[in-house]
Every structure is written in structure tokens, then in C-alpha cells.
């Protein structure tokens, strides 16, 4: 029996285990939408294609399964671009399917034609323009394989309308044949041995955990490593949750808004073990002075990340979880003497680092003051009332950094935040995707009043499907992080960062059919959060009127060394 391209697409997605698609219809994808009606796949209609890409991304980050989004040709496809770039920068497995004008019209500037494979070339792991329906099953199989293996990433499949109509016999391949794509998963045994030896020889080791530890499911191995060889642990924004945030050895995030203890530890460590992290400029500060006394072990599945920003002593290419498990095996098999050799020094080191942690904690003033609520208090209250068990998405800026600092993530895949690209407007649609992928859990989008408006239309999506996400707006009527930089680095000249005439967020929520709540003091904050958490049938927007000029501290000025922290209490 012959099937149309649209039917083949839907069948192939079902074969790949796809249960959910986020999308928005249009002329070039009408065939596909017609077939989706008869399929077991649940389609969520977003209100802007960017929302579809972010929702699929939030779904992927919080479930570990690939997210799928669908848009029509031309503007539908270009509206996905920011979402695809967001997923690319944070290595999120995303499948973007776009409609395209008929093959006979390609290259003629036809109505709603855009060269989306050309446009997304630098922001996808790979992409396809399918010109023959016979190629479609293989392309879908390859797309999922590429998106989810090795270093995960987005793959785009562009489908001309005539290809969705054309018919052929359907046979789904059971394996991929890509001789040019063979990611390395297990580390080289000799490098594993060397790494284990360096760990045992180190007096001041520091574990530096990134997003690769989450996509590589390395949490168990991380815990074992720290149990065998006790050492302090720090994480990047993307790595939060891979190691328990409440563990006494966890120092918090490092880098620009890192803790004093984490940043001091990088300066003093004699060994840095980087697990699935990429030495981003927001982490290292001024590169030549990053971890100046340390040898570096760098474990990464992407060989191109190793040696890209810092010289590495022991490079290990492979999956973070598998490599760490192998290192742990070697350590566990080592002699008690070998493990005891530097144990006393390591204990002194750990004590010293934990003293920094105790002496210079992240802190803020009173929960409320005449200038408004402390935004940090709001995040802490969210943490308390959810017992730290919520899935949190963030926007970008101050709201993101306060969340990273004050919500302690004990489990992987509990935080979805745009780290690499820094996309404002990510968090609300990502929360929708996260909630759909995790129906039993509380999902909260920590937002700012600027970011909230960037994809506010997705409240309509959440209302339509009764998705009970919670949006917590830290409303300072500023683009807070921009204002903070203007205060610190531009002599208080607040150019275009004031959002005084923004709308009433409670009324906005109500107009969409969501619940709108507002808190202006500490008591109301507690009540509003409790009320919001009790609502399970529709979205809630909480508007927290926070101190307008609160700053994220500590802060390391851009491109400065990590010891140049401002506001860490060390001056």
C-alpha cells in the first residue's frame, strides 16, 4: 500500500516514539496537519512558532526525550529560528519540521518561501531538504539519530508541499547508515587511567560540572566519585541539578555570578575536573587567569570543545556518564594506600573551601523594604513551598541568576534555562513543554517583567489545554540586568532599560483566562505562592513587585579575573 509523504512523516514520528508535537499550521503543511488529526500524536497549538520551538525544547530538557516542533514555510519557519538557535547553544535534542513551497517553485521567491535550510545551517547539528518522498523515512530516522546521540542538538527537516502529497510504499528503516557520523562514547582506557592517577595525586581537586553531565546522565557517577575521593563540587548554569544542590560539598555556581567559594576554589585548585562543561566566557572570566594553578582533566563528548578555550592536560572524549563511571571503577580498584596518599591534604582543602562557603554565603537584605520585595526572597519562598521539587524554567537576566543562586536543584532535568544563547522569552513556552512532559510535577517559570512580554501570547496555549504552569514575575519595571550593568559600568546612565509603562500583569493573565495574583510584601508573597500552587487546572501568573534596583551579586565584571568579584562580601 502506498502512503503520502504526510502520512509517512506521521507514521515515522510514531515509530520514533513521538507522543507530542508543538506547532502552528499554514499553507505548506496542510497535508501534514490533515494526517495528524488521525494519528495518536497529541498536537499542541501554540500562538507563535517561537513558542513551539521553546516548548519542544523545554519538553526535551526536562524529559530527556527529543522535542518536536512543526511550522509552515517562510515566516513559520523563520519564527522557529531563535528557538532552534537556543537549543543548539545548549545541546538540546530538537526536531524541527518545516513546510516548504513545492519543489517546482524552489528558488523562485514563491509565496512564503524562505531558504530555511540555508538560514539554519549554522544553528543546527544537521538539516535536510527532502526533495523525494522516497527519502523521507530514512531522513526522519537519521534526524532522530543525529539529534539524540553524541552531543545532542537540533535537526531541521524541510518538506516541500508536493513531497507531502506524493505517494510511495512506506518502509521504515530499522537502522541508520551514516559512516561519516560515529560519536565516541567511551573514553580511551589510558586516558581514564591517567585521570584516575591525577585525581589520587591531587591535593586540591575541584569538580566542575556542566550540561554534559545532565545529557550524559552522569549524576550517579558524580556522586560515587565524590564519595570515593571527597572534593568540592561546582556547576555551571547548565549543570545545576547534576549534583545535589543541597549536598554540603556543593559550592553553587561558578563564574560571573558564581559564589565566592566556587570562584575562590578555581583560583586555588591544583586539579580541575571538567565534566561536560565548555569553559564559556561567563564561567572563566579573563581566560589566562582561570584556574591558574590547576591541571585540567576535560571530559566531553564533543572533541571540538576540548582545548577550544583552555589548554587541557588530560583530554577525554566520551559520554560524561560513561567516562566518569570508568574513572570511578579505576579509583575503586585502586589500593587503599593510593587513595590515602593525599587524603589528608584533600581533607584540609575541603575544610578550607567549605569555610569560604560558610563565611561568604549568597545573601540579601530583608525580605521586604520600603523599596519593595527582595527578589531573592521570592525565589527562596518558591523553593520552600515546593520543597525544592519543582521544575523551574527561567527567562534571561536577573531572574535567571537569582533562580540559579537561590533555588537549589537536587535532581537533574529540573532546570530549563537558556544558557548559551540567553534567549528572553524562552521560559514561558519552555514551562508549557516541561509541564506536558511531566504532568505530575509543579512547573514554575521564573520571569522578569521584560521577558514575560516576549512570549506572553503562549498563555493562551496554556489556557486552551488547561496546563497549570506557574509564572512568577519578579517585576522591577526595568530590564534589570541591563540596568544593573548600566549602574555598575555606565555610571548609572539608564538608557532604554526602564519599563515604567508596562501593562498590568494581573489583568493580562485574567484577559487570557489565567489566574492573576499580585504580591507587594513578604506576607502576600507567601500567600500568593500557596494559592498558586493549589491551582491545578489552569495557568497562574504571580506578579511580585520587587525592589526596582536590586542587583545580582556577586558579579565579576566581564572579562575580569574571577578574584575581581564585586559584592561577595570579601572586600
Amino acid at each position: 500500500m502506498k502512503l503520502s509523504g504526510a502520512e509517512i512523516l506521521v507514521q515515522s514520528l510514531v515509530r520514533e516514539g513521538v507522543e507530542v508535537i508543538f506547532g502552528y499550521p499554514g499553507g505548506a503543511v496542510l497535508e501534514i496537519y490533515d494526517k495528524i488529526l488521525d494519528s495518536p500524536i497529541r498536537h499542541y497549538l501554540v500562538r507563535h512558532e517561537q513558542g513551539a520551538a521553546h516548548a519542544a525544547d523545554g519538553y526535551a530538557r526536562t524529559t530527556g526525550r527529543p522535542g518536536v516542533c512543526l511550522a509552515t514555510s517562510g515566516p513559520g519557519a523563520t519564527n522557529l529560528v531563535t528557538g532552534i538557535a537556543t537549543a543548539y547553544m545548549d545541546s538540546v535534542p530538537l526536531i524541527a519540521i518545516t513546510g516548504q513551497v513545492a519543489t517546482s517553485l524552489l528558488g523562485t521567491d514563491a509565496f512564503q518561501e524562505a531558504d530555511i535550510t540555508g538560514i539554519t545551517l549554522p544553528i543546527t547539528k544537521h538539516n535536510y531538504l527532502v526533495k523525494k518522498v522516497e527519502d523521507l523515512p530514512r531522513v526522519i530516522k537519521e534526524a532522530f539519530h543525529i539529534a539524540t546521540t553524541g552531543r545532542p542538538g537540533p535537526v531541521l527537516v524541510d518538506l516541500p508541499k508536493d513531497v507531502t502529497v506524493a505517494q510511495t510504499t512506506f518502509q521504515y528503516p530499522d537502522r541508520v547508515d551514516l559512516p561519516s557520523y560515529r560519536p565516541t562514547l567511551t573514553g580511551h582506557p589510558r586516558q581514564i587511567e591517567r585521570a584516575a592517577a591525577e585525581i589520587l595525586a591531587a591535593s586540591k581537586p575541584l569538580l566542575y560540572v556542566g550540561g554534559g553531565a545532565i545529557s550524559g546522565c552522569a549524576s550517579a557517577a558524580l556522586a560515587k566519585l565524590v564519595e570515593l575521593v571527597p572534593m568540592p563540587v561546582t556547576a555551571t548554569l547548565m549543570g545545576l541539578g547534576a549534583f545535589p544542590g543541597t549536598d554540603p560539598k556543593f559550592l553553587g555556581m561558578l563564574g560571573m555570578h558564581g559564589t565566592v567559594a566556587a570562584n575562590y576554589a578555581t583560583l586555588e585548585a591544583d586539579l580541575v575536573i571538567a565534566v561536560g562543561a565548555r569553559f564559556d566566557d561567563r564561567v572563566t572570566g579573563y581566560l589566562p587567569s582561570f584556574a591558574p594553578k590547576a591541571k585540567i582533566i576535560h571530559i566531553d563528548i564533543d572533541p571540538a570543545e576540548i582545548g577550544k578555550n583552555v589548554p587541557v592536560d588530560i583530554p577525554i572524549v566520551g559520554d560524561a556518564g560513561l567516562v566518569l563511571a570508568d574513572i570511578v571503577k579505576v579509583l575503586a580498584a585502586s589500593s587503599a594506600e593510593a587513595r590515602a596518599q593525599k587524603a589528608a591534604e584533600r581533607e584540609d582543602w575541603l575544610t578550607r573551601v567549605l569555610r569560604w562557603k560558610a563565611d561568604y554565603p549568597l545573601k540579601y537584605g530583608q525580605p521586604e523594604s520600603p523599596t519593595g520585595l527582595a527578589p531573592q526572597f521570592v525565589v527562596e519562598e518558591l523553593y520552600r513551598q515546593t520543597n525544592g521539587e519543582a521544575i523551574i524554567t527561567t527567562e534571561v537576566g536577573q531572574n535567571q541568576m537569582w533562580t540559579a543562586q537561590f533555588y537549589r536543584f537536587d535532581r537533574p532535568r529540573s532546570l530549563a534555562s537558556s544558557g548559551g544563547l540567553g534567549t528572553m522569552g524562552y521560559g514561558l513556552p519552555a514551562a508549557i513543554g516541561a509541564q506536558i512532559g511531566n504532568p505530575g510535577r509543579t512547573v514554575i517559570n521564573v520571569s522578569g517583567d521584560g521577558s514575560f512580554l516576549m512570549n506572553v501570547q503562549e498563555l493562551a496555549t496554556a489556557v486552551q489545554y488547561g496546563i497549570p504552569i506557574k509564572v512568577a514575575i519578579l517585576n522591577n519595571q526595568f530590564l534589570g540586568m541591563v540596568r544593573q550593568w548600566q549602574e555598575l559600568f555606565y555610571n548609572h546612565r539608564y538608557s532604554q532599560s526602564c519599563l515604567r509603562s508596562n501593562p498590568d500583569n494581573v489583568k493580562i493573565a485574567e484577559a487570557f483566562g489565567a489566574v492573576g495574583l499580585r504580591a507587594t510584601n513578604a506576607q502576600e508573597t507567601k500567600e500568593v505562592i500557596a494559592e498558586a500552587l493549589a491551582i491545578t487546572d489552569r495557568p497562574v501568573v504571580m506578579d511580585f513587585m520587587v525592589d526596582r534596583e536590586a542587583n545580582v551579586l556577586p558579579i565579576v565584571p566581564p572579562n575580569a579575573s574571577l578574584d575581581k568579584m564585586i559584592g561577595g562580601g570579601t572586600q
Partner: protein
Amino acid sequence: MSRHVISVLVNNKPGVLTRIAGLFARRGFNIDSLAVGETQDPAVSLMTIVVTANSATLEQINKQLNKLIDVIKIVDITDVPSVLRELMLVKVSATPANRSEISQIVNIFRAKIVDVAPTALTIEITGDESKLTAFLQMLIPYGIIELARTGTIALVRSNAK
């Protein structure tokens, strides 16, 4: 900074050249020359890319190229005994008086005159880059009118691997 000749086997598919050229452009790697053509296997093309880079950049070029799904194999053949060739066509001013003089230079370099006109000669020459440069130096005094080069292509010598 030194010059490197990189041999890249790629899937012979539409858009592959764009993927490679785009990668070089957005990561700020400089291409001195790039030549591409089908191999004995029509599904595979060979790209010969000449780059000037320091060792860290070269490592990144290698690794980033390797990440492209359509790249099958990369070999830096700079230090491997190889045959490097480039084809150049050069149109040079020539008068009846100096035509034979130019013809002698052409013979010395084992080049070939492929077109003769009253005021110009068009010459074809193949060789490695230094030979082509030396030849060009000899012709400059006569006046170069037009010039076209293919960029280097290369194969490793049979008993050199």
C-alpha cells in the same frame, strides 16, 4: 602561522560546499584556496583546502570539520609526501617582438601556449604553488592582462602512508 593542505572527503550532496565554506566563515578561519571535485566514487567528493593557521586554529578546523555530518574523513597532508598541483591560465601582453622570448620562458617551465592573438598570449601551466609563483614572476614584466587559478588539489604518494 603556517600553511597547511587539508584533504577532506565529503558526501557528494547538494549544500556540502556551503556547509564547509560557512563553517570557515563563521568561525573566522581563513581559506587560502579550496578545490573540489568528484572522486572515483560518485557519492564522494574530495576537497583540498589550503589554510594558513596556527596549531590551535588548525586543531579547531580539523575538529569542527569532523563534526559536520557530511564530512567522511580529514587528512592534513602538509607533512606527508604528496603530489600537489594547481592549474593556472594566464593572459599576458605580447608583441611580435617579444613573443619568442615569452615562448622560451613557457618552454623552460613546461607550460603551454593555448591561444595566440596579435597583442596577447594565453598560457596554461600546472604545478605546485611555488612553480606557478616563479612562473608568474617571470611574466609580470610583460604585463599580465588576466589570470585564473584553480587552487591546489593533492593526492598522497602511493607508498607514503
